[in-house]
C-alpha cells in the first residue's frame, strides 16, 4: 500500500535522477570515450572494460540511492514513531514496502545503466559489446537497491537513536564511502579473496561485471586475463542474499524502536 507512494516519491525526486542517473551516465561517457586508451585492441578486453565500468557505476548508482533513503528516514523519524503507534503502518510493512520500492528503483536504474553502457562502449570501440546476461544485471540492480536501503536505514536509525544527529550528513554518506572504498580498491589493488567474497559491495559489482562480461571475473584484475584464479558469482550471490537477510532482520528490529528527534538537531551550520 505504502510502496506506491515510495516509488512515486523517488521517481519524482530530481536529485535522485541527477545523482543516480545523469551523473552516472556522465561517468559512463568518460569511461567509454576518455579512459579507454592503453587497452589491447581486442574485443574481449573492450568487453571486460565495459563490464567493469558497468559494475562500478551500477554499484555507485545504488549507493546514491542509499544516501537519498537515509535522508528520507531521518526527516521522517517523528512521522515513523507516530505512524507505528497511531496508524495501521507496521514496522515490518514499512521495511518491506520501502525495501521493495528501493529494489524496483535499483532494477530500473540498473537497466538504464546497462543500456547506456552497451550503447556508448559499442559505439566507441566499433564492436557490438552485447551484455551476456542482462536479466542478471537487472536482478542484481534489484538486490543492490534492497541492500542499500537496508544498510542506509540501519545506519541512520543507529545515529538517530543512539549517536545523535550532529553527524547525520556524514551518516547518510557512509554507504557511498564504503562503496567507493570496496568498489575502487578491487579493480585497482589486489584484495584478499575473503574480502572479495565477504563484502556485499564487491559482490554486487562483481556480479554486475559477470552479467555483462559473460565470463567469471578474475580474482586479480591487474594481471592479464587467464593467468590467475576467478571469482565464483554463485557464491557471491549467495553471500549477498545472506547479507540482505541479516540486514533486513536488524533493520526490522531497529525501526521498531525509532525515536522521534528534532530534525533541527541535524542542522550542520
Amino acid at each position: 500500500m505504502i510502496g506506491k507512494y515510495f516509488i512515486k516519491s523517488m521517481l519524482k525526486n530530481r536529485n535522485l535522477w541527477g545523482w543516480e542517473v545523469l551523473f552516472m551516465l556522465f561517468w559512463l561517457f568518460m569511461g567509454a570515450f576518455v579512459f579507454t586508451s592503453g587497452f589491447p585492441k581486442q574485443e574481449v578486453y573492450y568487453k571486460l572494460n565495459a563490464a567493469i565500468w558497468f559494475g562500478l557505476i551500477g554499484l555507485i548508482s545504488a549507493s546514491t540511492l542509499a544516501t537519498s533513503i537515509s535522508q528520507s528516514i531521518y526527516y521522517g523519524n517523528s512521522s515513523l514513531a507516530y505512524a507505528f503507534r497511531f496508524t495501521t503502518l507496521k514496522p515490518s510493512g514499512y521495511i518491506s514496502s520501502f525495501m521493495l520500492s528501493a529494489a524496483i528503483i535499483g532494477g530500473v536504474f540498473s537497466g538504464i545503466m546497462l543500456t547506456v553502457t552497451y550503447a556508448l562502449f559499442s559505439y566507441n570501440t566499433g564492436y557490438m559489446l552485447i551484455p551476456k546476461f542482462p536479466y542478471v544485471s537487472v536482478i542484481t540492480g534489484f538486490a543492490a537497491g534492497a541492500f542499500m536501503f537496508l544498510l542506509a536505514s540501519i545506519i541512520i536509525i543507529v545515529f538517530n537513536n543512539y549517536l545523535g544527529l550532529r553527524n547525520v550528513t556524514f551518516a547518510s554518506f557512509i554507504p557511498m564511502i564504503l562503496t567507493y572504498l570496496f568498489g575502487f580498491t578491487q579493480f585497482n589493488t589486489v584484495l584478499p579473496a575473503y574480502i572479495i567474497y565477504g563484502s556485499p559491495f564487491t559482490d554486487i559489482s562483481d556480479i554486475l561485471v559477470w552479467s555483462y562480461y559473460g565470463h567469471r571475473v578474475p580474482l586479480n584484475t591487474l594481471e592479464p586475463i587467464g593467468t590467475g584464479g576467478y571469482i565464483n558469482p554463485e557464491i557471491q550471490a549467495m553471500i549477498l542474499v545472506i547479507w540482505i537477510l541479516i540486514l533486513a532482520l536488524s533493520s526490522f528490529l531497529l525501526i521498531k524502536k525509532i525515536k522521534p528527534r528534532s530534525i533541527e538537531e541535524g542542522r550542520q551550520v
Partner: protein
Amino acid sequence: MMLEVHNINVCYGKSRKQVLNDVSISVDSEKVAIVGPNGSGKTTLLKAVAGLTDINSGKISIFGKDLSAIRNELRISTNLPEVYRLMRMNTADTVRLYSELKGRDSKEILDLIEDMDLSDTLDKMLYELSTGQQKMICNLLSLSGISKLILLDEPFESIDLRRRMKLTDLIINHNAEIVMNTHEFDILTRLKGWGLYFIIEGRLFGKFEASEVKNLYINRGVAPNHISVMETGFGTFSITRNDGEISISAARNFNSLLNEVT
C-alpha cells in the same frame, strides 16, 4: 479514561531544562483547552501524549493503555506537522496516504480542503505551502475521520479570519474529544462546555470552564477569594472569579496578560 497524564516531567537539552513539571491531566468525554504563553510547555505536552517526545518520569495512558505499549491505535489524531513528513509528497498524496494509514476515506478530507478554498495546495509539496496553509492542511487531516481523541496544537496560528471562523465551527461541532493548545483568548468564550487549563513554566493549573473566562481575573499574590494559586518563577499569582485585579478575557493573549501582570 480516554486520556490520563499522570505526573509527567520532561527535560530538554544539555542543561536539562525542565519543560513539563509534574503535569497531570485527565480527559474523558470532554473537550479541553490549554492556554499558556509561548514556551510554557503546551506543545511539549501534546508531543508527549503523541509519543513524539520522551518523558523523564510519569505515565501517560490512552484508552486505558500505557502509551509505550500502544500500536496501530487509529482513534487518535493530531495536527502536529512533524507527523505528516513520512516522505516527500505533495498535499494530495499526503492526504491519500494518511487516509489509507488511518483507514479513512480521503474524499472527506479532500472535500474539507475544497470547502476551505485550499484546492490549489493539492499539487504542491507541503513545504511549498505558506505557514497558514500548512497549518490548515494538518488541522484538516487531524479533524477528519473516526478519531475519538484529537490533539490540536495552536490550530488557529497564521490562519486568516474567514478560515478561522470555519475552523472554529468545525472544532466546536466535532464529535471527538479534543485537547487544544492556544495562547489566544478570543476563541475561549465560544467553547461552551469545554474545560480550561492554564500552563505556565511547564506547570498546569485548573481546571476551569472555558466559557467562564470572561469572569476570571488574575491577581498578583494570593487573593483571599482565589480559586487557584499559580507559583511561577516570576512571582505568585492567583485566579479569582467575578472580581479581581486584571480581567483575563480583556487580554488578547497570554503573553500580553503576563506582560500586564508582571
